[in-house]
């Protein structure tokens, strides 16, 4: 059966929302702006009932089967408690882990068996492959609202703000867990993702050519090897500036906080100052639609972008 644009739009109009731990902590501005933009566009979010950790890096690095179970429980909750067909995770880590769990349950008998065993012990329905569709916030806005419809919603816009779109590593890798990507046409590219570029171009940004859009930010080593993370982030910031960007748009809380924190650390430890601002794409979209910076949590970002946004007449 062919999935038309209208089918997808209908399906994404109301989704189960999985914020994950980051959006309730360090990435609260991402949560605030995602909810605010969704509300502004008339897209409905219903939090996954009694959601749990996706297994992120801690559990995954100790026992991948347990991580698969944890992510599967989120999908099971969304399916069985929310009655949803689609779960939307704005965090790249959560999104990646749910997609990985979906793949593992479908392709690895051991993963399926573990999920069924622990789910039975925990007293809830086990998740089965294909019961729910996991999407990212980028898919949600691009397809659930629509690009042309979004264009009509822009008030003021981003006025040619020069933006480097940074997707980080988890949004497209490893490719086998994203079977819907890299199909050509309007599907997301696995090598040069563009959904964020597309949305922000509609919002009036001037996207710069940024060769490090999926490069490693060193997020996994922020604690164990901070200097390496600082160097990787500094290089991303310098490349964005060399490309002419005023702002780096992000869609991953790990990348976002890494860029913000190591920008400060680079100045302290390496005496390297960079001025490019780090802003969530949802915040930029909200601004373009005339929403206030406060409503989008921009004041709560570590990277202080409000003076620049005011100077450019965007905030």
């Amino acid at each position: 059966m062919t999935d038309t644009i209208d089918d997808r739009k209908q399906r994404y109009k109301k989704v189960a929302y999985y914020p994950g731990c980051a959006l309730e902590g360090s990435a609260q501005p991402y949560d605030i702006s995602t909810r605010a933009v969704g509300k502004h566009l008339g897209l409905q979010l219903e939090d996954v009932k009694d959601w749990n950790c996706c297994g992120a890096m801690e559990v995954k690095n100790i026992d991948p089967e347990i991580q698969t179970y944890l992510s599967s429980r989120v999908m099971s909750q969304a399916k069985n408690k929310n009655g949803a067909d689609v779960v939307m995770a704005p965090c790249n880590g959560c999104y990646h882990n749910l997609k990985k769990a979906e793949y593992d349950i479908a392709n690895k008998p051991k993963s399926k068996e573990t999920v069924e065993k622990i789910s039975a012990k925990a007293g809830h329905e086990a998740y089965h492959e294909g019961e729910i569709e996991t999407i990212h916030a980028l898919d949600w806005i691009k397809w659930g609202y629509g690009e042309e419809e979004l264009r009509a919603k822009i008030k003021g816009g981003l006025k040619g703000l020069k933006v480097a779109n940074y997707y980080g590593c988890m949004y497209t890798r490893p490719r086998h867990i994203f079977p819907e990507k890299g199909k050509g046409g309007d599907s997301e590219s696995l090598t040069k993702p563009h959904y964020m570029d597309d949305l922000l171009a509609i919002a009036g940004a001037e996207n710069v050519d940024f060769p490090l859009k999926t490069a490693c930010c060193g997020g996994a080593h922020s604690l164990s090897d901070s200097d390496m993370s600082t160097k990787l982030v500094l290089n991303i910031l310098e490349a964005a500036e060399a490309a002419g960007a005023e702002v780096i748009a992000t869609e991953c809380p790990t990348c976002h906080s890494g860029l913000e924190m190591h920008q400060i650390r680079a100045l302290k430890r390496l005496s390297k100052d960079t001025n490019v601002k780090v802003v969530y794409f949802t915040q930029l979209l909200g601004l373009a639609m005339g929403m206030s910076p406060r409503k989008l949590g921009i004041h709560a970002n570590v990277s202080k972008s409000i003076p620049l946004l005011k100077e450019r007449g965007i905030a």
Partner: protein
Amino acid sequence: MTRSIAQIEEWLESGERAADPLEHAGELVKAGEEVLENWILAHGGTPTDETRENFRLLALHRQGAKGDPSFNACRETCREIAYHYNLVKLEAADGRGQDTVAMMRLVTKHLVLFIGGKLREAGLGDFCCSSRSLRSKPDRKVDYLGV
């Protein structure tokens, strides 16, 4: 002789470079190859002399990624280096290419940092895009690094 990762990083930091953009772009491709050679040698392999799409750099990346999916996190970085080299080549014919080679230098630096980081502390890139848990064993379906 292959320079060490530290020597390549030092060279990139030093500002020493060929004045001609195309010549410098060639130096950067060479630096990228040397970084990958370091990775392969550290894993007991013999760096290939083959090329892919006319770049030895891409063949070396392919060799280095065998058995280690997290290494694919720098696949696009290698492809960007190759792409920038081709751009510089086009632009140099018109006496341009300075800005492109400057960006290429930053892309190359990212490769140096990423692989240098992975060599220093196994695991970089393992949480994120191609997680391989501590308990899982290397993929035996492929010849590890071609050896």
